[in-house]
C-alpha cells in the first residue's frame, strides 16, 4: 500500500472515456463530479482504487471513473467488494449503491458488511425511488407514496438507512446532499480516512421520478432552518443566523431558540464517538419538529475483518512455518505397496 504518491493527479485522471448516460439534471452528476474532484487529493495511487456497484442508476458509476471497476448484479456489490478487500487489503475499495440495491435486494449483504467492519467505503445514493425500473416506490419511500406499483399509496414503513447501519454495527455513518458539493467532498474524504466500513448516505434528487424529495433541505429559503450541519465537538446550532439549537429535554432532542432563555452552553455538543448521540441523530431523520442532521454522525475505531484474517494467518504460519500442502498430502496413516 502506498499512502503517498509522486504523481499529481487532476480530475481528468479519474474521468473515463465513456459518455455519462444519466438523465439530464440527475443528482448523480454532482456526486460523480465531487468524487472525481476529491480523489486526486486523497494521495493514493490511481491504480489502487476499485469501484464496485450493483444494479440501478447509481451503479453505472464505475464506468465513469477511470479506476478499476466492477459493475455487478443487483444487490450483491457488498459481497463482491468484501471478496476484493479480503483478498487484497492493499486496495482502496469503494462501493456505489442505491436505496433499492443496497437496502432492498441487497439488504442482507449490507448489514453483514457493516457488522464485519471490512475497510471499504459505501456511498449509498438515496433518492427514495426506483429510477432504473421507471418509478416504483423503494424501501426508503415515505408511507403513502403513490407510484406505478402503489397507485393507492405505499403501505410499508421506510428504512432509515443510518439507523439501520448503526444497528448493524457500523463504525462510521455520515450523510450529505447532492447539491452540497463542498460538504460532499469533505464527507468523501472523511469516508476514505476512516479505517473500517464507512457508510455515507447521499441524498440524491431523481428529477424524473421523485423530483424535489429533498428540496426542503436544498432550497435557499428553507435549508437553513431544516438542516443541522454537524461539527464534531461543537454545539448543535442551526438556523439562518445561527439562532437555533438542539437541546436535550430529558433524552428528547428539542429545538430551542437562542436568546434570553437558552444560550450555546445549553445545547448538545456533537461527539462523533458517542453512540447515544449518533443513535439520536439518526432517528431525527425527516421528522417534522427537528432539522435534518447532515455530516458525520458516528465514527469510532474498531478492528477490521481483513486485518483480523491477516493476523490469524500470520500466527498460523508462525506456528507451522515452512509447511506446505505436500506435507498435508503426505500425512496420516500411510503404507507402501511394493
Amino acid at each position, binding site marked *: 500500500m502506498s499512502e503517498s504518491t509522486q504523481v499529481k493527479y487532476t480530475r481528468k485522471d479519474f474521468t473515463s472515456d465513456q459518455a455519462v448516460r444519466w438523465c439530464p439534471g440527475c443528482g448523480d452528476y454532482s456526486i460523480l463530479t465531487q468524487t472525481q474532484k476529491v480523489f486526486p487529493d486523497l494521495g493514493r495511487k490511481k491504480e489502487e482504487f476499485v469501484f464496485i456497484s450493483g444494479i440501478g442508476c447509481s451503479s453505472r458509476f464505475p464506468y465513469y471513473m477511470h479506476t478499476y*471497476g466492477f459493475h455487478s448484479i443487483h444487490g450483491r456489490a457488498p459481497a463482491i467488494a468484501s471478496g476484493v478487500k479480503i483478498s487484497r487489503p492493499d486496495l482502496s475499495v469503494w462501493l456505489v449503491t442505491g436505496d433499492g440495491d443496497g437496502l432492498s435486494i441487497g439488504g442482507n449483504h449490507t448489514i453483514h458488511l457493516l457488522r464485519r467492519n471490512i475497510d471499504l467505503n459505501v456511498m449509498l445514493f438515496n433518492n427514495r425511488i426506483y429510477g432504473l425500473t421507471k418509478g416504483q416506490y423503494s424501501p426508503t419511500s415515505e408511507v403513502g407514496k403513490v407510484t406505478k406499483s402503489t397507485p393507492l399509496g405505499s403501505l410499508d414503513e421506510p428504512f432509515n438507512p443510518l439507523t439501520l447501519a448503526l444497528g448493524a454495527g457500523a463504525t462510521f455513518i455520515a450523510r450529505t446532499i447532492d447539491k452540497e458539493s463542498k460538504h460532499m467532498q469533505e464527507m468523501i474524504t472523511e469516508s476514505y480516512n476512516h479505517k473500517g466500513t464507512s457508510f455515507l448516505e447521499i441524498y440524491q434528487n431523481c428529477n424524473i421520478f421523485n423530483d424535489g424529495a429533498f428540496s426542503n433541505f436544498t432550497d435557499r429559503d428553507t435549508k437553513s432552518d431544516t438542516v443541522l450541519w454537524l461539527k464534531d465537538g461543537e454545539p448543535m446550532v442551526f438556523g439562518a443566523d445561527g439562532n437555533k439549537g438542539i437541546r436535550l429535554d430529558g433524552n428528547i432532542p428539542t429545538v430551542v431558540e437562542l436568546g434570553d432563555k437558552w444560550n450555546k452552553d445549553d445545547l448538545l455538543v456533537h461527539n462523533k464517538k458517542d453512540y447515544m448521540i449518533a443513535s439520536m441523530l439518526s432517528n431525527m431523520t425527516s421528522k417534522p419538529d427537528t432539522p435534518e442532521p447532515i455530516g458525520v454522525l458516528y465514527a469510532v475505531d474498531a478492528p477490521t475483518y481483513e486485518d483480523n484474517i491477516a493476523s490469524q494467518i500470520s500466527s498460523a504460519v508462525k506456528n507451522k512455518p515452512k509447511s506446505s500442502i505436500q506435507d498435508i498430502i503426505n500425512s496420516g*496413516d*500411510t503404507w507402501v505397496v511394493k
Partner: protein
Amino acid sequence: MSISKKQVDEVVIRFAGDSGDGMQLTGGRFTETTAVVGNDLSTLPDFPAEIRAPAGSLAGVSAFQIKFSSKDIHTPGDVPDVLVAMNPAALKVHQSDVPPGGTIICNSAAFNPRNLKLAGYDSNPLEDKTLDDYFTVYSIDMSRMVSEACKDLDLSPKLVDRSKNFYALGLLFWMYDRPLKSTEDWLAKKFAKKPEIIESNVRALNAGYNYGETTEIFTTRYTVDKANLPPGKYRNVVGNYALSMGLAAAAERSKLELFLGSYPITPASDILHTLSAWKHLGIKTFQAEDEIAGITSALGAAFSGSLAITTTSGPGIALKGEAMGLAVITELPLVVINVQRGGPSTGLPTKTEQSDLMQAMYGRNGEAPMPILASSTPGDCFYVAYEACRIAVKYMTPVMLLTDGYLANGSEPWIVPDIKELPPIDVKFADKSNIVDGQFMPYLRNKDTLARPWAKPGTENLEHRIGGIEKEDVTGNVNYDPENHHFMVKTRALKVQNIANELPPTDVFGEKSGDLLILSWGGTQGACRSATEALVNDGKKVSHIHLRWINPLPNDLGGLLIKFKHVLIPEINLGQLIKIIRAEYLIDAIGLNKVKGKPISSAEIQDNVKKILEK
C-alpha cells in the same frame, strides 16, 4: 471346538446403530486399519439428516458400510455379508439388505421393550427366532460386557456405555484378523486430555476382541489378503478431504492465493471446514452470510487476482445462478463446486444423487456455458479439483465441478501424489504488453484459448471496468450492438468448446467395439466398472467409458459410441446425461435410472445389460 481360519477375497460389513452410537467413527476406524493392512477398500457412510433424531427411532439410524478385498475393487459393495446392529431400529432398517446366509451381530442390551416398540417390533426378533432361519445371528450383551470391563474406572455408567461401539469394533477386528494398535494409538491421541476415556474405549475394544478369541460362539475367522494394488505409497482418503487438498495443490502450483467464499450446506461443508483449518498455508476462507455472498465474494476475489472457489450443494447452486452468469460474461476464473445431494428443494440432504447435471449445464439465464467436470471416486476428487482450477485460470472462465454425497463422504486407498508432477498451472497476469494505443484492452483475447487477459487491480495503467452488461469485443466497453452480442455469445461458447482440444483420448475399458457400451459420469463409475468386469468375465461383449468431462464432451466420443450396438447410461437421476448424449450424437442410448438416494449397484447394472443383450 476349534476356530478355523478361512481365506476370502472380499467382505462387506455394515455398522448400523443410533445416531448417538458412533457408527461413523467405528466405520472410520475399521477403514483406517483395513487400509493399513493393505486391502483395497471402498466405503459408504449413510447417515440421517437429523442431527439427533429421537434415540432408538428409525429416523435416527446411522450406518457405515465398508467393502474390503484382496482384489482391486470399485464400489462399497451391494449387500453386506455382516450387519452390526446396535439397536432394534438399526436391525429393522437394514435387515432386508442382508442376503440369506449373512451374519447379523446385535447388542442385545438395546433390544429392550422401549426400543423394540420404537422400531415397530411386536416381539423381540433376537428371542422369537424369526431371524434364525435365514441368518447367522450373534446376540451379545455388549453393554454389560463393557460395563464389566470398566467397572473399576471412575466414570459414569452412561459414559462407559458410550464405549460399546469400540466393543463391536474389537469383535470385528478379531473376526477379520486385524490389529488393534492403530485404533489404540488413535484413541490415545484423540482423547489425550481425557485418560479415563482412552482407558474405557481401549478396554471395550480389547473386550470385544477377546470375546471372539475366548468364547466358542464363533467358529470361523476370516482373512483377507493384501490387495495387489499398483506399487506406491498409499493413504486412505475421503472425497471432500481429497478435493480440499486438490484446491490447495492448485494454489501452490499456480502461486495464487486461495480464496474460498462459502455458506455451510450438507454435504459440502467439510470442504469449508478443511480449508479453514489450513490457514498456515495462507488460505483465506470466508463464511459468507448466504450462498449468493459465497459466490459473489469469491468472484470479487477472482477479480482481484486470487484463485477463487465457492462450494455448495444443489440448493446453493440454484441461488448462485445469477452470479455464475456474471462470472461467464465478465470471464473471470472461478471454480464452483456442487457436492450433489437428493433433490428437489431440501430433498434428501444426506443422501446421494446425480440430479444436478442439467442444472449445471443450463441453470443460468441467457447463453451461459460453463465447463463441467465430475469426479469419479473419492480419491479422484483431488485430481478434478486441481483440473478445474487449471482450466478456470487458463481459459478465464467459471468452471463447474460436480461431486456427490457418496463421493464426498466415501473413502478409498489413494496413492500419495507428488504435486510437482501435476500439470503446471502457469498464470500470467496482464501487464504493459496488453496496452494498445495507450489503452488497456480487457477483452483482447489469447488467440489459442480465447481467454481474455487477467489484469489485477493495483497494476499501473491497466485500469478498466468490467460488468454484467454485454461488452464490446476487445475494448470491453458497454455495447448493445446486435452483431457484437451475437459474436460475444458465440465466442464465449467457443471458448468452452475449445477445452476439448486438450483432453486426452477417451479411455475405453474393454474392446473398442462390441454389443454394449456402458457410459457413465460421476460417482457411478465404480459400479459400472465392476459390472463391466463381471460381464466380460461372463463372455459378454461389453465395454465401459467413463466421462470426466461433460462440457465439453471429448472430441473422440461420438466415434467411439457408434462402434457399439447398444449404449447404456446408468445414472442416479431420471436421465440427464442421456439427453445430452442423444442430442449431441443422435444415438438411441438406453437409460438405467434409479433415484433412491443411494448408489446404483453393480448387480442392477449387470441385470440390465443382460436383459438388453437377450432382446
